């Protein structure tokens, strides 16, 4: 056997465990889920077949369409607000905070990341609830007469999400800003660009791949999340993951849950293609 052939046989051997694992526990279940999404429920039993009825139901039923719309709206709003809040924070840490304090400043900015995800949503409930810190403070100051209803609304879901993703985006955007050579900004200013022009025409385009990558991650993670809308948003305006979990729990309707998951997956794929021009997933 030639050396190259031996090498490649060995390489296949090293690759095989990871590929087999991914095929068996990711690709196969995913294909199974797609197949199941075309099945039907008769009573408590799943009847396999090729029936697009579940999809027809998703795109006509007002509750399901509503959940799809809620998910999309919440996710887009969360992604935009998080980027807009995180960019200045990352820039201030990268350009204003003295170099030796930057790592500490960054660690502090993501410290709540280390509480458990479930607990983080719960903490916002303590802040935003009917008897929560915000309401008690505003009542105490006499700014409002009645407690505000924030918990169990979409606003609470958005606040909970934004909190998490501002931390994540601050990290990714900072990593991008710090790699920029200061010469770009210097050159722009030498050529007469104002501070704003330097930012809009030089810094921002150079950091766009990092911003888009972070925004894409925000989109994927928030549209697929069950915890935050369930704890903070309550059951008034369901999101897609909440609806999927309801199908699993209450009615055991696996085919419909699978179809909803395929729709969720399709939305994420669309977002991927919309942003793929700037995406650098290999550099996260």
């Amino acid at each position, binding site marked *: 056997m030639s050396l190259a052939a031996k090498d490649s046989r060995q390489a296949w051997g090293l690759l095989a465990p990871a590929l087999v694992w991914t095929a068996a526990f990711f690709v196969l279940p995913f294909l199974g889920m797609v197949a199941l999404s075309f099945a039907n429920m008769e009573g408590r039993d799943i009847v396999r077949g090729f029936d697009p009825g579940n999809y027809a139901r998703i795109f006509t039923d007002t509750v399901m369409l509503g959940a799809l719309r809620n998910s999309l709206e919440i996710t887009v709003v969360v992604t935009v607000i998080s980027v807009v809040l995180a960019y200045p924070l990352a820039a201030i840490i990268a350009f204003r905070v003295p170099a030796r304090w930057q790592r500490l400043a960054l660690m502090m*900015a993501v410290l709540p990341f280390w509480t458990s995800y479930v607990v983080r949503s719960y903490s916002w409930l303590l802040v935003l609830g009917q008897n929560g810190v915000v309401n008690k403070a505003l009542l105490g100051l006499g700014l409002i007469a009645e407690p505000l209803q924030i918990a169990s609304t979409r606003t609470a879901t958005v606040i909970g999400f934004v909190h998490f993703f501002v931390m994540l985006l601050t990290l990714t955007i900072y990593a991008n800003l710090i790699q920029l050579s200061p010469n770009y900004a210097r050159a722009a200013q030498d050529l007469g660009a104002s501070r704003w022009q330097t930012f809009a025409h030089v810094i921002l385009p150079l950091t766009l791949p990092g911003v888009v990558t972070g925004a894409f991650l925000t989109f994927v993670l928030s549209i697929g999340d069950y915890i935050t809308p369930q704890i903070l948003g309550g059951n008034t305006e369901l999101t897609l993951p909440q609806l999927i979990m309801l199908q699993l729990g209450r009615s055991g309707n696996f085919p419909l849950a699978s179809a909803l998951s395929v729709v969720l997956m399709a939305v994420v794929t669309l977002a991927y293609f919309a942003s793929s021009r700037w995406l650098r997933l290999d550099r996260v």
Partner: protein
Amino acid sequence: MIRMLSWAYLVLAYAFIFLPVAVLVAFSFQNGRLPVPPFKGVTLDWYGKVLGNDDLTAALLNSFLVAVVSSLVALILGFLAAHALARVRLPGSALMRGVLIAPMTVSTLIIALGLLNLFTLTGVRLSLWATGIGHVVINLPLCFAIPYAAMGDHQRNAERAARDLGAPEWKVLTLISAPMLAAPLAAAFFLSVTFSWDEFIIAFLLTRFDVTLPVEIWSMLKSGLSPATNAVGSLVFLVSVTLVILLELTVFRKRP
């Protein structure tokens, strides 16, 4: 002016980021039944209750076990695959990289649902091990991508030298490649442990009885707000932060 605004923004941003954690920790000491204002004085009772709760300590051990074992498996699989793809040009290697990274871009809910279907069909009993399988799936992309990105010419040359001197492949892997990649391998491992430790939906759907900590906390939430939940959350926070600081001072010290 801009300077002032920057510092003001920094302060506001940190206030927003710290607000929920500060409230969480503060009201874990609440001497009363509800973790909301007014603050009725300091007590450690809730910590006592939580530490004496067998369900919680069992869940904590389950979480620890599944995090460490699934991260180790993911790290070994990922490292071997990265080593193979970085060394030999195979037909379709770009596709294989894509397949290995793919689970990262798919919601964990979808991965969980797919596995739930698979296990129900094949009659695999739902348990901590089923959860562990799912956690390897979500952590494998990371454990592949981080070492893969860190493999360079320098390392390839050292491996080649070892092979020329007659080292079998397993010796090259354990004595040359792994030690040279110690830092990225450690980073991948600890990131995986963090994700697995904190993962909810896979653990929720794939485990029936031996639940993990996030699932146990979730079931505590069903009985409403309680300073006990605050105490659990604060303890998790304390442990994680201590771990992060230790890692920062040891493993990641050299990194710029």
